[in-house]
């Protein structure tokens, strides 16, 4: 994996895929090292988000295939299995369960999408 940028914190940016690999207003899964990361974009706000691909409910590698949307402006993804929804900003479960997912920063430059891990 190519490490393109270094930031003051120990965050390193990894190439995910070109913008065109991602469906508009949807998600796709990228492999970075041995990790599966779900990457989403919202055309409405122009924002990109990334999180772990695994749903913590039943440990399924699936979140990239979930429906996205917002709850009162908070961007979220719904797991396809049992519709548990997670904030893409904080990783918090929005149904009041105590599951939580990791979220990661995303950067888009020159048509390429990068995830900070």
């Amino acid at each position, binding site marked *: 994996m190519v490490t393109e940028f270094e930031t003051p914190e120990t965050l390193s940016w990894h*190439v*995910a*895929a070109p913008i065109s*690999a*991602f*469906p*508009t*207003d*949807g*998600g*796709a*899964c*990228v*492999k970075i090292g041995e990790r*599966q990361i779900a990457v989403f974009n*919202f*055309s*409405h*706000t122009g924002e990109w988000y990334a999180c772990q691909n695994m749903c913590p*409910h*039943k*440990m*399924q*590698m*699936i979140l990239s*295939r*979930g*429906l*996205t*949307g*917002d*709850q*009162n*402006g908070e*961007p*979220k993804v*719904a797991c*396809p*299995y049992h*519709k548990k*929804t997670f904030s893409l900003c904080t990783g918090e479960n929005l149904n*009041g*369960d*105590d599951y939580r997912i990791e979220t990661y920063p995303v950067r888009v430059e020159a048509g390429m999408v990068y995830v900070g891990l």
Partner: protein
Amino acid sequence: MKNIVVAGNGMVGYKFCEKLLARQKEGLTDGGQFSLTVFGEEPRPAYDRVHLSAYFSGTSADALAMAPASWYADNSIDLRTSQCITHIDREARTVTTHTGQVVAYDTLVMATGSAPFVPPVPGVQKDGIFVYRTIEDLEAMLAWGKRATRAVVIGGGLLGLEAAKAALDMGLETHVVEFAPRLMPRQLDEAGGAMLRQKMEELGIRIHLSKNTAEFEGYDRVTGLRFADGSVLEADMVVISAGIKPRDELARQSGLAVGPRGGILVNDLLQTSDPDIYAIGECALHNSMIYGLVAPGYDMADIVATQLLTGMSAKTFAGFDMSTKLKLIGVDVASFGDPFCEQIPHRTIVWEDRLAGVYKRLNITEDGKHLLGGILVGDAEAYNMLLQTSKNRMVLPPTPEDMLLPARKGDTSSAGAGVMALPDEATVCSCEAITKGTICTAVTEKDATNILAIKKCTKAGTGCGGCVPMLNDLITETLKAQGKIVRKVLCEHFDLTRQELYDLVRINGQTTYAEVLAQYGKGCGCEVCKPAVASVLASVHNQLVARQAVIQDTNDRYLANIQRGGTYSVVPRIAGGEITADKLIVLGEVAKKYNLYCKITGGQRIDLFGARVDQLPYIWEELIDAGFESGHAYGKSLRTVKSCVGSTWCRFGVQDSVAFAVELENRYKGLRSPHKLKSGVSGCARECAEAQSKDFGIIATEKGWNLYVCGNGGVTPRHAQLLATDIDRETCIRYLDRFLMFYIKTAEPLQRTAPWLDKLEGGMAYLKSVVIDDVLGLNEQFEREMDYAVATYQCEWKSVVDDEDLRGQYRHFVNASDTDDTLAFVPNGRGQQQPANW
């Protein structure tokens, strides 16, 4: 500053804290400040014991918490968990815990609850014998249950049956042993108990009545129960649920008065024999009663909180109604008011339907004016209404027996409007003691117009949840009374009903979700409105769902049903269940090549499970080459039209049911609808295709076909109702076109035909007038739209297989050609594979 100490952090102890804070916020304080210290013996803050069984189905301990630990801290409550109070010094007014912590009190509130009563049967200490009260109990049961095969629950009361259902759900062979000659002896009469027994046995739970356990057998772990009559029941797990024993040991030891059979004695102010010490909840003995339910406990908590903060004793505890509705066991059971009326002169009305497993009994006054109580088994829909009618001594209608009959289909006047007849003081939510008046005010003045808002605003419906249907009716009826039309809007992003959106899209012709959202919605959408809009777009334009994959539910996004572990299933259409030997061979060959698990479905076709997402287009390519098409098992669309073999082979058949089923399946295949559609065609009245359990079902007669509509299996099975008799093939198809289009246009998202008909004003009579007599004048349009849908049908899988772009969506990673290495299979022991357990 007054020091208040609470002994016990259970449901009632928690509620006391909450009420105290609420009263303080309302400004009811007489100026005095208080400090609040709470001791709980359990390791975690109070949790919802009522919904404890949800722990088995995956609800986490934290989700069950009444409030997180931070709530106590935020409200300056000193919560000390894992601390058992072992001593009260009433002279010095201090409590001491088992670790030696000492705290002084001005007022002590005992909320120590109860413990399961464990009968002193020899051998009761053996391993494998459990009680059912705390999260730790459930954890222990779960761990043991993994290695057990047969569970016996001792006690056929409310909690015992709940424990039995939990054991059954753990996959164990389950037995219930009851000492009394019937189940739930305190709530049900003999006939009700017998009906409940029948229902429990249908669920697979074996019931043993009039059994007195004399000994638990086994060396150190339990192997069985020996009864007083000498018989033996083998078991490797036992759950004791033989009643509760109030936890009065601390009170007893501190010299407080306790009842002869246990319980801390309290007066109407809930004071114990020491006026500075109160007792509330399941440990309190009031007027010779221990209340084993939350609602009375909450009432007590409220009374003490109000007293302490106002210094007034305006409110006293006046006993509580023991009406109960059993939850979670898969059978409706309820008893309310005085279920037996052994002491009071009364008349009894009974309705019994053994076949359906329904028993209802109402006790009414001799003059027939008032309802005294009753019992409901098998159908407790009317529980809330009946409970309120009896509690409020409402005058009964001249024919009270009507209240017992199953709700009449399509009769929308009954339930909903009934709630408005209740007086404002009627308690609707007994857990939180919220009246009808409070709910209606919240609706009219605080704009709480949905159930979530009502819960937030009034707390009604947050306890056992039993009142939620009634709350919904109240919201609807209150809004209606205000002249506001009640609309079931899609979600926070669309202030429109599905029907309104359908009409707008049809008239204005939007074809994408983005256009629809931009025109009629706001925000980014969500998992509710995206599939709903997708379904509308598909119904109106019959366009390919794969072109807008990201707004589809996952099954529609990949045109396959997702399975445990992350693989998908493949279900080709086998119209009418008819298939040639050659096609069977192809299915077998494809399954073998991709190592797929094969199963005949409940819908007369073949399901191939375990395909990776990237394999789907290849598998379908081979199937399509052999003449198969998509079976739409993933879509909200027509599934199968089942058939029986019919007159071509069967000696009883009067029409060719297979040919008709194949024709109907091919006509309506791919038709997108609010929910899935299923059908069946039987060749004679013997009904081997189960047509009457379908959304539309057809049964051959000597003269033609009988058409039934709006049935389903599933969670709430419903028989389809007769729409037309002895019609010919063409008429049948026309009626179906109209019926289906009318449903597709007017139903709510994910509403199947039977619940749709229930909500259709005028019911079946109205549906007939639309479909047969064309009262809306829309039939021509319905038929035209259906003809369009039929003409534009395309096999979704063929479209994907033939399109490189669409095929490209079928991969696990967009930046690597690897497959998901977390997929794992294990042998299923019968020559095939299954996903590793999750």
